[in-house]
């Protein structure tokens, strides 16, 4: 539809105004909720998780450092305890050794024990042997045993220092024992035996505190030979197992500070912060380890807690953000909907304001804007365009006879046809009534415009099916071009209108181009029309009466009334000069009434003057003949004047009859019923058969001049005239 075409030029104003809220995607502002909330969420989560992970890492590091430090500290303590215990043992052994060396093999042991110089007897059992290894005295009941085959005995044969044994298992109690010994010398320095003391190996790990070392810590004494004298983890105590001494004590040799290394201990595959320290001047090393898992458990739990909290907070944030996002999205949606409704409403209002409600085409005021816009654009870019002014022919009749609804339907259909027969860029508007106007941009060649006009004509010409019947309507088109025929809205519209009138005068269903001549004709016409409207009031019309003679008797048989206009400026005008205008404007109806009335009065006057009654004839134009009030008018005139109806003769042309035969016949018979005579004028100009004419019950037949002239020249036609004559008479 060109309604949309026209509308499209107007819509951009709205689009510009509303594009921001309508297209949120086009501007990605940070404040837009669908960006803002996720962005905040990401930032918050990033901060949260960074902090959490840093906290976890810091916590882990401090836990490791704590474990390392406490391992070192505990190892120090343990080392000191072991050293002290070994010294105590050595001291007690030395006391016995010296006692025996000074006491000449007297049984000193019981005495020393009573004095409290020995180690606690319920932990230690101390014995003395002779040079052959036979036990000669002991703090415990003993069997006669010989220890000559024991390694510590053999070692004491050669060296005078504290000797510690490998761990050995008591065959009776199954407990692991450690033995420490010292050599006893004879006065001359010869070997006199040894003093040795045995203690549960577990004694050396009795300081194991679960509170410090946990279930899986380790406390132990490892010989430089790689044999564990004793080792304890939790409640589990073992002796005699092998371990890689050099690997454990590798970096603790020398002057370096003790350090705790995270090692997976070979004996039980537990990862521990392990400290190994070789004892000074003794072939033993203390081993202390803190289980990594246990030491870091708190940190791991903390880590778990932090992670859970962070996850919880994340989820809460996610939910909150989700809710906010959803709410704001809904808000945005409802705003958008409201905005859309507002726009739709505005569009409707605008559409109503600028469009014809019946056809949906742009209305007069919108068209005026479009035209002005077109003019401005054409001016700016030196373009041309054409304006077509359309007026439906006979639309009034259709509206009157078929009703307004049918008329409206017809207008809608015409609007559709017009739109369909034009380009997309063309604009069709309805100015009101049956007037349409078409704007053809960038077109001014006569040939092109003619083609368009013809297209429109043929589109409108096709039959319409309305109110249950087929009917045809035609259109008259006036064309003018910019800038040739006008450069402003008023001039262009007026000139197109003038051209349209010219087309109508030229027989309708037609188009006409505007020209300056048309304009002047039109001006004349306008002047004439305005004076014609006033002529009746001013009494400028007058009738001339032409007598009609009876050919046979030579007497005056009647008179024909002829209308003249005494124009104040132009002088007396023949009816031909103004009747077409009167017919076109409809002024013929009151003028015609005046003519009939005046003629009737004249006929009466003649009778009053004593003249014999004469028939007076008056011409009826097409418009008069089809006027619905014709019969009424005639009968009322006859009544008021009191003229005998037989003295009035109404003349119509033959052509008029043939336009609408049935209706004409009906009108004529009604006129006859009034008693008024009827004359057919201009007979022979059309090709009506006499038998057809007979239906009209006319009284007079006026043969056209052309027919008479031909009769005179062609003898064969005389017969025709002769044939006509009896009918006419």
């Amino acid at each position, binding site marked *: 539809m060109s309604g949309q075409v026209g509308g499209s030029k107007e819509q951009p104003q709205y689009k510009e105004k509303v594009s921001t809220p309508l297209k949120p995607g086009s501007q990605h502002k940070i404040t837009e909720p669908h960006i803002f909330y996720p962005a905040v969420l990401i930032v918050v989560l990033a901060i949260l998780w960074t902090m959490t992970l840093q906290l976890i890492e810091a916590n882990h590091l401090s836990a490791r450092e704590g474990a390392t430090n406490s391992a070192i500290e505990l190892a120090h303590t343990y080392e000191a305890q072991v050293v002290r*215990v070994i010294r105590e043992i050595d001291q007690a052994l030395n006391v016995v050794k010296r006692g025996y060396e000074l006491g000449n093999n007297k049984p000193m042991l019981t005495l020393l024990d009573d004095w409290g110089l020995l180690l606690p007897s319920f932990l230690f059992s101390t014995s003395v042997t002779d040079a052959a290894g036979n036990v000669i005295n002991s703090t415990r009941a003993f069997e006669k045993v010989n220890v000559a085959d024991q390694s510590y005995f053999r070692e004491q044969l050669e060296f005078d220092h504290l000797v510690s044994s490998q761990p050995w298992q008591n065959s009776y109690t199954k407990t692991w024992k450690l033995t420490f010994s010292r050599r006893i010398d004879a006065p001359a320095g010869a070997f006199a035996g040894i003093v040795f003391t045995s203690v549960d190996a*577990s004694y050396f790990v009795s300081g194991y505190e679960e509170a410090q070392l946990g279930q899986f810590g380790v406390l132990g004494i490892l010989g430089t030979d790689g044999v564990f004298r004793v080792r304890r983890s939790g409640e589990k105590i073992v002796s005699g197992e092998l371990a890689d001494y050099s690997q454990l004590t590798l970096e603790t040799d020398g002057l370096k500070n003790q350090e705790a290394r995270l090692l997976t201990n070979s004996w039980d595959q537990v990862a521990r912060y392990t400290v190994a320290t070789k004892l000074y001047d003794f072939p033993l090393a203390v081993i202390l380890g803190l289980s990594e898992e246990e030491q870091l458990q708190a940190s791991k739990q903390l880590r778990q807690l932090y992670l859970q909290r962070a996850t919880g907070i994340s989820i809460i944030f996610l939910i909150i953000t989700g809710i906010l996002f959803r709410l704001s999205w809904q808000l945005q949606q409802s705003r958008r909907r409201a905005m859309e409704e507002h726009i739709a409403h505005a569009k409707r209002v605008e559409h109503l304001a600028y469009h014809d409600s019946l056809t949906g085409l742009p209305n007069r005021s919108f068209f005026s804007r479009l035209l002005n816009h077109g003019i401005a654009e054409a001016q700016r870019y030196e373009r041309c365009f054409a304006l077509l002014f359309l007026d439906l022919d006979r639309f009034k009749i259709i509206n009157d006879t078929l009703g307004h609804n049918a008329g409206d339907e017809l207008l809608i259909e015409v609007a559709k046809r017009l739109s369909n027969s034009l380009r997309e860029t063309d604009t069709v508007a309805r100015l009101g009534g049956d007037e349409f106007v078409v704007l053809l941009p960038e077109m001014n060649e006569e040939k092109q415009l003619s083609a368009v006009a013809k297209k429109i004509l043929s589109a409108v010409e096709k039959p319409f099916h309305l109110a249950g019947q087929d009917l045809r309507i035609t259109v008259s088109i006036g064309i003018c071009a910019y800038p040739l025929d006008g450069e402003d809205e008023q001039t262009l519209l007026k000139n197109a209108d003038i051209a349209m009138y010219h087309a109508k005068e030229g027989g309708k269903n037609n188009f006409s181009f505007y020209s300056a001549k048309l304009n002047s004709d039109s001006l004349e016409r306008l002047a004439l029309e305005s004076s014609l409207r006033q002529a009746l009031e001013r009494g400028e019309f007058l009738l001339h009466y032409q007598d009609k003679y009876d050919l046979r008797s030579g007497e005056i048989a009647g008179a024909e009334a002829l209308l003249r206009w005494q124009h104040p400026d132009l002088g007396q005008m023949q009816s031909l000069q103004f009747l077409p205008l009167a017919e076109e404007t409809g002024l013929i109806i009151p003028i015609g009434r005046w003519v009939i009335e005046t003629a009737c009065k004249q006929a009466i006057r003649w009778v009053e003057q004593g003249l014999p009654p004469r028939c007076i004839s008056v011409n009826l134009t097409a418009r008069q003949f089809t006027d619905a009030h014709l019969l009424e008018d005639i009968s009322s005139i006859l009544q008021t004047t009191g003229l005998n109806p037989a003295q009035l003769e109404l003349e119509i042309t033959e052509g008029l009859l043939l336009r609408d035969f049935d209706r004409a016949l009906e009108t004529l018979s009604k006129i006859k019923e009034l008693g008024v005579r009827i004359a057919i004028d201009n007979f022979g100009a059309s090709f009506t058969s006499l038998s057809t004419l007979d239906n009209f019950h006319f009284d007079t037949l006026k043969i056209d001049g052309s027919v008479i002239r031909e009769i005179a020249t062609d003898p064969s036609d005389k017969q025709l005239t002769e044939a006509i004559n009896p009918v006419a008479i």
Partner: protein
Amino acid sequence: MSYKKYNKILTQLALLAICFAAPIVQSEVVVVVSASNPVSSLSKSQVAKIFLGKSYRFPDGSRAVPLNQGEGTFERDDFYQLVSNQSPAQVKAHWSKLIFTGRGRPPREATNSDAVKQLLAGNGVNIGYIDHTAVDDSVKIVTIK
């Protein structure tokens, strides 16, 4: 008849023996101090603390020096069971730890109840435990609350 009578007497003696045997098997260890010591009653935990090296004083502030009986004696085992509910192994482990870590020295030991009485009479130690059958005027039984 005389055989029967003899038999009957034997049976009566056996029953009597069983009657007396029960308290003997359930030997009763009592905590004692020297007769001159003013301490007359202590709680179980106060005694346990003194004998497990956790306390060196009586409630009145005077010094407490405990005297053990030898390892493996029933007096010793029963005593610790009574005051601290600990087995001999637990007591040994306890003392091992105290001695090893240098936080204490075990009480002196007496070989039997008579030795305990003798040592309590002298100086140095002032609290011990003996079988109740061994109690005489030289010592005073401490009431365990």
